[in-house]
């Protein structure tokens, strides 16, 4: 382990200087070349968004709650099919990949969690969850960006990859003053074809155009982009192929996580990474042990499990958290699906996580306990879960800046699923 780190560092040093060539060497690169970015055991957080409102009740199934079976006559997961976790809750059978993570106490679950805002609009709810300010539309930036901005000064020497999102656009959660990079594919993240001898020159020209542009929006993004391009070239994360046993499922989500793993393994100084997976909006024929919900939970859990295997020891300093804009109706609808609901389930995975436990208060599925008479009630605000991750794991003590207008001291409500 120690040896491989040395090699990597030496490689960084040599290749960084080789790639930069005639251009002025950016300070972050010299720092990357001469120092070890991960020195001091940098803490990392990986945030995953399930877009489209995942059906938390068919993901972590309250199989001990008889109401669950009454409310969902055709789309329930039968008790004998559920992967039981604690006698009351269990995983969807296609999420077997999560069981070992649960058994080794790295995986925790927070059920009946979500946003207190009543909206059932995908768009608004995603927006609120990513801005971190439910009910407030005027918030310009995202919670994850603020988390990076408040704790850290905007140090030019820092790696451009401290905040990174996988995908063709930067998610709301990461937009804001702190420089964040969107990468759709690490293999073609650059200007021109790598085999083209002209590529470096063209890249430099674009860089200089954007650096000198008075168009502030494009100027800022341009700088972040080219810093990242250079660093990525130097570190060449594509050579970190998945380790044995890390079997990523086919598809965009698996690809995203594979690339996050590559960025982590290449020592690029990633502190927060964001990826998302769509396709959870099952209004019709949701399925039960088979069908749409089974397929997507399989892809979801296998990708995360593969990622966890892939990053190996890096998991010690990593916490991964999942969320979705809202849950779905407790009762199945008229077309063997579910409509937009309220509370959902969040997964928290990581070395410092006190896993093997379902956290949060279970409100029950009795009619009188259902939110607006139809949906699972939110008993844990999603910001409480994220706050705990930020505070206890990332060491971010400025929670009031990350979640303005939230609890003055969210620590009082911490569920204590992360070790400090």
């Amino acid at each position: 382990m120690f040896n491989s780190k040395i090699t990597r560092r030496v490689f960084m040093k040599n290749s960084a200087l080789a790639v930069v060539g005639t251009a002025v060497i950016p300070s972050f690169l010299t720092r990357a070349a001469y120092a070890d970015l991960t020195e001091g055991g940098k803490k990392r957080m990986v945030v995953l968004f399930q877009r489209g409102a995942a059906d938390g009740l068919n993901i972590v199934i309250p199989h001990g709650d008889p109401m669950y079976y009454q409310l969902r006559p055709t789309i329930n997961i039968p008790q004998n099919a559920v992967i039981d976790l604690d006698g009351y809750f269990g995983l969807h059978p296609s999420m077997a990949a999560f069981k070992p993570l649960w058994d080794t106490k790295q995986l925790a679950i927070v059920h009946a969690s979500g946003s207190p805002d009543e909206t059932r609009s995908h768009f608004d709810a995603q927006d609120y969850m990513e801005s971190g300010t439910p009910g407030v539309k005027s918030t310009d930036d995202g919670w994850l960006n603020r988390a990076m901005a408040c704790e850290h000064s905007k140090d030019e020497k820092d790696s451009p990859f401290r905040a990174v999102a996988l995908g063709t656009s930067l998610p709301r959660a990461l937009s804001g003053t702190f420089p964040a990079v969107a990468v759709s594919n690490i293999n073609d993240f650059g200007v021109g074809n790598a085999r083209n001898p002209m590529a470096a020159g063209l890249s430099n020209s674009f860089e200089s155009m954007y650096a000198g542009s008075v168009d502030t929006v494009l100027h800022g993004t341009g700088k972040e982009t080219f810093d990242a391009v250079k660093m990525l070239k130097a570190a060449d994360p594509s050579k970190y192929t998945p380790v044995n046993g890390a079997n990523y499922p086919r598809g965009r989500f698996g690809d995203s996580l594979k690339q996050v793993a590559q960025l982590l393994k290449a020592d690029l100084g990633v502190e927060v990474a964001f990826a998302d997976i769509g396709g959870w909006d099952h209004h019709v024929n949701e399925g039960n042990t088979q069908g749409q919900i089974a397929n997507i939970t399989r892809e979801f859990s296998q990708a995360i499990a593969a990622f966890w295997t892939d990053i190996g020891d890096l998991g010690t300093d990593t916490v991964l958290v999942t969320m979705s804009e809202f849950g779905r109706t407790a009762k199945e609808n008229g077309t063997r699906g579910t409509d937009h609901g309220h509370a959902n389930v969040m997964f928290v995975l990581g070395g410092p996580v006190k896993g093997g436990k379902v956290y949060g208060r279970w409100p029950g599925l009795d009619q009188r306990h259902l939110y607006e008479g139809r949906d699972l009630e939110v008993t844990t605000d999603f910001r409480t879960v994220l706050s705990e991750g930020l505070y206890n794991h990332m060491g971010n003590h400025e929670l009031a800046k990350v979640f303005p207008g939230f609890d003055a001291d969210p620590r009082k409500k911490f569920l204590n699923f992360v070790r400090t």
Partner: protein
Amino acid sequence: MQKLSRRKKLIATLALVAACGSIAVVAASKPKKAAIAQMDESKRALHALNRLTFGPRPGDVEKVTAMGVDKWIDLQLNPQKIDDSALQARLQNFRTLNMDARSLVQEFPPPQLIKAVADGRSRMPSDPAERAIYQARIDAYKQKQQKKAEAGDNNANIDDAGQNDANLTPEQRQQRSAQQEERMYAELDADALADKSPNDRFNAIVRMSPEDRRTMVQSMGQESRQKLMDGMSPEQREQLQAMANPQSVIINELVQGKLIRAIYSERQLEEVMTDFWFNHFNVYVQKNADRFLTTSYERDAIRPHVLGKFKDILMATATDPAMMVYLDNFQSIGPHSDAALGLNRNRPQRRQNRGFFGRTFGDNPRPQNNKQPDKQKQKRGLNENYARELMELQTLGVDGGYTQADVTEVAKVFTGWTVKQPQQGGNFQFDERLHEPGDKKVLGKKIKEGGMGEGKKVLDMLASSPATAHFISKKLAMRFVADDPPPSLVDSMATTFLKTDGDIKEVLRTMFHSQEFWAPEAYRAKVKTPLEFVVSAVRVTGTDVQNAQPLAQQLQKMGMPLYAMQPPTGYKMTADVWVNSAALLNRMNFGLALASGKMRGLGLDKESLLGPNTAAPPADADSAVAAVSRTLLDGDISQQTHDTIIKQLNDPQLNPRGVAMNDNPRLRDADLSVIAGLMLGSPEFQRR
């Protein structure tokens, strides 16, 4: 916070630039006209072109200036007066664009139909070419079944099989070499075919057995497959493509058709508005029957109304099968409807479910015999999806003042708005048996029980609501003026909306003649979406598009695949979504690739980038850059971009010719590619 300040700074900068550039012109005009007067006529023309079209082509600014900007705008608002025959000629190869959904299903059969024919539930078509498509697909279907069965037989080896020769059993090896031999003969067949006339070639292929055809096609590379189709009619090409993938023919033509229209239509505003309304009333082409319903949706429900009355486009989308499928309404059933309760009430009994052509999509919600209510069938009921998105995204807007109770009531109102046999490309129909009985209450108003009339009433109510007027006006202003449009503008547009019974043309007219539209801070204030970027680059370079598929692939890469936005929100049109590192790199790379003239299916005359008036080629880097920037940026090139390009051209290490341009000033294609590629990827070209 930062974003806001960036934006403000930008606006301030732009205002300053525009103001400085036109001081002489402003002089002593009246206050109301002041903002307009700050742009001279050719700037106004460019601004109008940037907003009403997918970007100016070479010579457009001059044409619009000569006609007069206001007159040109008026013409664009009346597209029927504009001759568009050149576009029609370019579209004539895309036959599916004019076909109804039923014929699309028949000629380009989806997997369900293939299965039905394979299982003998549906008949094989008699036309030989169509029959060949069915046979090819049935062959593929059976192959797949066989593979599945084999995989089941030896599950343990499934991962290794076929990947590594070393792992093959002797039999497998033998089989493989037999296949290779077969391929070799098939190649000979292909060679023989190449000598035949296109028609004979087509007929020979159609007559081949599915197995022979499969082996032949597998043996051919992309290029020889293309060659095989040389000289064939569009219909013949489609049919050959359909043998490999029938559905892709429909989607491919839909996507190419959209790009070709955006690039070549003279009725540019109509295209921009078609894009706008399709995006507003988004459907997802990959969702079930929408694979073949989207073509007619855009053609019949969207396009005819893009400059008409809002209520008409709203009604047209609500009664289009593509929308009812996309937002699941076709399956929604009133909990107390006849169908849910299993009642017959003396209505003629429906046809029994027999095979493919008697089947609706998904499970059939209708009871098959009406003797007693079937417990399972009773479980079908309400689906809120359409009701919610109708109010949130299509009319009132999320803050339009409706509640969850309204969503549920509207869902009841629209029960029975369904599709007759969607899987066969069937039409919209109102089915009374699915409709929830009783009065409903929507937005505080009682909707008396009245079948389909209830829904019509609700659509009218929504279409004439002030919240809708405001929501639609704001969205239009965001497309045409600024990401954060001035409230005064939105208000005056909304006033026109309400005064004219939602006449979109009049709302646009109000906007185009507003002070805010022509304000200096609006000039080049919009960051292009990927679609706008790609199409504007193709238009401004005068690229000849023989095949728009490579452009569609670029859009996919940039995160904006056409007709393939899954959530009902459609694509956002504000800068925050489209300005990020991944996106910028993709744009730069596209600019370079397009300007290289080497993209498949796209012909670029590089000389033309120098503009029409260059008798002699530019004698140095400076004048070359100036000439190209006139063509691509209407001369609006920043000092920084200009200097960077010059530097690249004059550095022997960076110039593709290996020599500084000023030392060997004869302009070459390679220089032009560099100049144009850098310019298309420059910050200036990202805005419109």
